[in-house]
């Protein structure tokens, strides 16, 4: 029954579309379109009145051009004219144009509404449907005002055709969703409910959607729909697979209607009427029974349709959460799906089971599937399925299986995708704390977390372990011993150093008896990490040292020596300098007693809600994971730290040594008012003064600022050293050529191109980077006709670069023939973050004369960027976490190139970060995120670029967890625009 052949319809349109399709290039296409636009304009403006057909044809062409992505700013009037045509095809195109290119010109709207009004009153069902579809597709407030009162009438009128009723129901739904205040409730509402009894299944299908939406707002008014829906559902479910004829889809009777009815029922609690309830339970059992029957068809459509109903039924069962028998049956059914060969089914089964795990009736039943789920975590190929498996493990965890689940999750973490690592870390941390029976297990788990995924262990997590260790006497000795052992690993994560520094500073005395961990050994172990750490960690370590002086007087001399060293006392960082000066003085002037009082062991932290849990809740989108967290609400009340009322802030701790040291000279910086709501967060994060030291004041952040006092502006800043001297140039090669920097800049945002060219030599670059590795091909082309001799290109690492970047080069032939090209392969590994690029020195003899040339190799830190996609919420959260002044770098600069959004986008992508849409409230701005991958550490970077077209200026803000990286990236990127 071929209804459409290609030839019919509008020939001119078909020709035009073929032309466009035949265009070889974007330019040709634009040219063709402009030609057509000019043609249509002249036709519309011409003196000759156009007939309906031509008008339809041209309007249709305009529509096509619009759909290709070009702006259309005329033709609306012609489209409106088509609305009043008596021909269906003309009217249809008119309505289509209006619906797709909604225009807010008030005069036009008046004309359109007039035409719609006429069609609604026409009693011609086809025209009425067209008009209703137009309203439903546009759904503007103006249309609501004009028609909200008419449509209910059409919907319940006795003489309306079925198809009109269907359209009217959904049209009303759209208007109600857009502007509920415009739709008057009235006697029609009762009659709408009775549409559930309509003969025509299509009408029921449309009406259920409307009723579901209405009863969410006014549950009491629509209560009668429950029994009607149940009886309708029961008739469908119990019908044989062929009873419903048209509405049977691959042997499944009315799958979509069933799903909609089941969703409608989820708006209400279980029916009160016993008869209705009995009938419904029967229905649900029938669905579960059918799932066990052999399939009536091997087609995937059959099983999908059947399972769609099944999953919706299970949702309803979970929603009621009152029928243990059904819940357990549902769980067993899902258990079968866990090993189904369809990935979709496995995914959905894991997802539904997560909610089942939170029901007291089915929790145990879910737990029986633990091995299957763990296996899914290990073997699933699809990352989203693995994530669901991890969610389910979290949801099914309780005291009995916590050790197994936590250890499996830890194992998974080693190979987990970057995107979900942080979430897994949080989950492990929460489970470990919640179900810890002995605290040594808890400490081990968290230290393992830091070891495996240190970068993803947020402050909340390691603060929490410190809190717990401080509060529990029985675990302090063990913790000290364990961190001491962990720190002996040759490369340990900075977070490990922080935890280690803090714990040894507090409880190092507990293991000092053992000669293997005597005070000097502890100190030298910590100090061996000192130089590799960030400022914040070094500040923490300095505090540990002063605590050591108190705990172990024998270390005093050594530590004073360290504090006295120029690198501390004259450190460029104010905070470090201040700590060094104060601690040194304290240790020399204060008596042992004073020292002991000031540096007393930390008092226990007041109990409060775990900040980690709060963080996980924030991380999860609304709806998506709330069931997870709330589901276990009952279980935690008498666990270690759960269940205690959160106290407003730890700042009120009654001891003078409340902050880590009790000796901060400057008063804590006044915290700005806490962001009151999520809505404000946006403003707060972006518009807050950049120099603000901390956004603290909510309990979480108060804790943060307590551990890591943001550097207060103090007069001592004046004593700070000027910036360290520039890297000494390497002696064995000449300085880079003057243009080297400019040449380097060209390659910041791209990987391939010509690096250098003069009369003799051309050097081309082709490179690719993945994670912390890169491979670069250098092509040396001899542009002359004479052979180069003793040709030797070498890569040199000036200054510290040797420890930051490893570059392996292959030798190339010493002779390069005239006109020939040689290739050199470089393998690059980024060990740490670095600031200066390596140098490429090229030497050769040309016609007997030695030539030498030094360039900067286009390897900049941003090459090791891995773009990270994240939702707006996550972005702001991270942005906020990086709020210390030294983590941010900002530059305001004039545009050097025309300000083109597309070009900017391409550059940012070339720079390596992901571009995040819909994050910044201002659509002109660009927001990006990425992780710099180096062997030793990963640095998360967030960036924001705000163009100001009027001033031809940009403002660029970078926030990363490492100060030099922020500054360096900011400088690199600023030169690109």
């Amino acid at each position, binding site marked *: *029954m*071929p*209804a*459409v052949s*290609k030839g019919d*319809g509008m020939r001119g349109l*078909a020709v035009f*579309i073929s032309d466009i399709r035949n265009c070889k290039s974007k330019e040709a296409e634009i040219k063709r379109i402009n030609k057509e636009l000019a043609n249509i304009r002249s036709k519309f403006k011409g003196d000759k009145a156009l007939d309906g057909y031509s008008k339809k044809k041209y309007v*249709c062409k305009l*529509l*096509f051009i619009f*759909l290709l992505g070009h702006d259309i700013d005329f033709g609306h009037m012609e489209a409106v004219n088509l609305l009043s045509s008596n*021909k*269906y*095809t003309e009217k*249809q*195109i008119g309505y*289509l144009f209006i619906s797709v290119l909604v225009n807010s010109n008030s005069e036009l709207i008046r004309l359109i509404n007039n035409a719609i009004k006429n069609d609604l009153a026409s009693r011609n069902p*086809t025209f009425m449907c067209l008009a209703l579809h137009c309203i*439903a*597709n546009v*759904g503007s407030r103006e249309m609501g005002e004009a028609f909200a009162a008419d449509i209910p009438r059409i919907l319940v009128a006795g003489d309306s055709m079925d*198809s009109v009723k*269907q*359209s009217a129901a*959904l*049209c009303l*739904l*759209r208007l109600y*969703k857009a502007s509920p205040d415009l739709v008057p409730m009235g006697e029609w509402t009762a009659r709408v409910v009775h549409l559930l009894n309509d003969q025509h*299944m*299509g009408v029921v*299908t*449309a009406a259920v*959607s409307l009723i579901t939406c209405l009863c969410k707002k006014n549950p009491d008014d629509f209560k009668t729909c429950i029994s009607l829906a149940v009886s309708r559902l029961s008739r469908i479910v119990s019908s044989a697979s062929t009873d419903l*004829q*048209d*509405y049977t*889809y691959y042997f499944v009777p*009315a*799958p*979509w*209607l069933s*799903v*909609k009815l089941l*969703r409608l029922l989820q708006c209400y609690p279980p029916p009160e009427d016993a008869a209705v309830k009995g009938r419904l339970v029967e229905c649900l059992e029938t669905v579960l029974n059918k799932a066990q029957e052999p399939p009536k068809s091997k087609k995937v*459509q059959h099983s*999908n*349709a059947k*399972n*769609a109903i099944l*999953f*919706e039924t299970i949702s309803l069962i979970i929603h009621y959460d009152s029928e243990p028998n059904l819940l357990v049956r549902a769980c067993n059914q899902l258990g079968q799906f866990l090993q189904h060969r369809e990935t*979709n089914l496995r995914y*959905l089964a894991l997802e539904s089971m997560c909610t089942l795990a939170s029901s007291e009736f089915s929790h145990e039943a879910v737990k029986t599937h633990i091995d299957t789920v763990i296996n899914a975590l290990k073997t699933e190929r699809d990352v*989203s399925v693995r994530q669901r498996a991890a969610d389910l493990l979290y949801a099914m965890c309780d005291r009995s299986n916590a050790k197994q689940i936590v250890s499996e999750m830890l194992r998974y973490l080693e190979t987990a995708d970057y995107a979900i690592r942080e979430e897994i870390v949080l989950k492990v941390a929460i489970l470990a704390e919640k179900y810890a029976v002995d605290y040594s297990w808890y400490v081990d788990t968290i230290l393992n977390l830091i070891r495996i995924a240190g970068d993803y262990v947020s402050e909340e997590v390691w603060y929490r372990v410190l809190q717990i260790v401080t509060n529990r006497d029985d675990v302090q000795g063990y913790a000290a011993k364990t961190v001491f052992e962990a720190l002996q690993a040759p490369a340990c994560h900075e977070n490990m150093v922080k935890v280690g520094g803090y714990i040894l500073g507090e409880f190092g005395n507990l293991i000092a008896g053992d000669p293997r961990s005597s005070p000097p050994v502890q100190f030298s172990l910590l100090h061996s990490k000192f130089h590799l750490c960030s400022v914040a960690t070094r500040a923490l370590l300095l505090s540990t040292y002063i605590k050591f002086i108190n705990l172990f007087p024998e270390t005093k001399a050594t530590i004073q020596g360290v504090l006295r060293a120029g690198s501390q006392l004259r450190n460029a960082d104010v905070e470090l300098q201040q700590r060094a000066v104060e601690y040194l003085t304290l240790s020399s002037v204060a008596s042992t007693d004073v020292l002991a009082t000031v540096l007393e062991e930390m008092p226990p932290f007041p109990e409060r809600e775990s900040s980690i849990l709060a963080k996980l809740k924030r991380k999860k*989108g609304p*709806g*998506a994971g709330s069931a997870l967290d709330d589901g276990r609400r009952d279980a935690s009340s008498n666990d270690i730290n759960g269940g205690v009322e959160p106290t407003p802030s730890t700042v009120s701790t009654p001891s003078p040594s409340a902050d880590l040291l009790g000796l901060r000279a400057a008063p804590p910086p006044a915290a700005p008012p806490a962001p009151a709501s999520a809505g404000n967060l946006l403003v707060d994060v972006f518009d807050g003064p950049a120099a603000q030291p901390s956004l603290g004041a909510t309990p979480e952040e108060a804790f943060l600022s307590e551990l890591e006092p943001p550097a207060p502006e103090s007069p001592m800043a004046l004593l700070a050293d000027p910036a360290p001297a520039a890297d000494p140039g390497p002696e064995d090669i000449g300085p880079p050529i003057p243009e080297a920097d400019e040449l380097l800049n060209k390659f910041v945002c791209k990987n391939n191109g010509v690096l250098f060219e003069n009369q003799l030599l051309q050097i081309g670059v082709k490179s690719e980077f993945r994670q912390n590795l890169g491979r670069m091909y250098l092509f040396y082309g001899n542009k002359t006709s004479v052979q180069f001799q003793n040709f030797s290109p070498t890569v040199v690492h000036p200054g510290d670069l040797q420890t930051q970047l490893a570059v392996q080069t292959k030798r190339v032939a010493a002779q390069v023939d005239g006109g020939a090209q040689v290739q050199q392969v470089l393998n690059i590994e980024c060990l740490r973050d670095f600031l200066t690029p390596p140098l490429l020195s090229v030497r050769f003899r040309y016609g007997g004369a030695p030539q030498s040339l030094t360039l900067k190799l286009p390897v900049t830190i941003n090459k090791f960027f891995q773009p990270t996609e994240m*939702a707006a919420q996550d972005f702001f959260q991270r942005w906020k976490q990086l709020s210390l002044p030294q983590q941010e770098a900002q530059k305001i600069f004039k545009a050097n190139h025309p300000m083109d959004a597309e070009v900017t986008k391409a550059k940012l992508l070339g720079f390596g970060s992901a571009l995040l849409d819909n994050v910044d409230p201002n659509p002109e701005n660009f927001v990006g995120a990425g992780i710099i991958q180096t062997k030793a550490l990963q640095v998360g970077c967030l960036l924001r670029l705000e163009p100001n077209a009027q001033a031809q200026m940009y403002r660029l803000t970078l926030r990363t967890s490492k100060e030099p990286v922020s500054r360096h990236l900011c400088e690199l990127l600023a030169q690109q625009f």
Partner: protein
Amino acid sequence: MPFRNFKIIYRRYAGLYFCICVDVNDNNLAYLEAIHNFVEVLNEYFHNVCELDLVFNFYKVYTVVDEMFLAGEIRETSQTKVLKQLLMLQSLE
């Protein structure tokens, strides 16, 4: 089934992807099959539908969509009824 603030359910037919954007807690499989139902109607209507049919008759595709989905909801699921209606409209001039 990738997600955004909503989720997108898609199905691939040869080189064409049919995508539908629904609320996060909507029934995945039901919409997956709704896509298939829609494609079967297109196939019937255009008789072995191919991409070119959809490009050249884009305005008719809109009509099919309106018959089956309206206001973001499923309007009609019976293929027979939809096709009957489409043929009726086709006969109008």
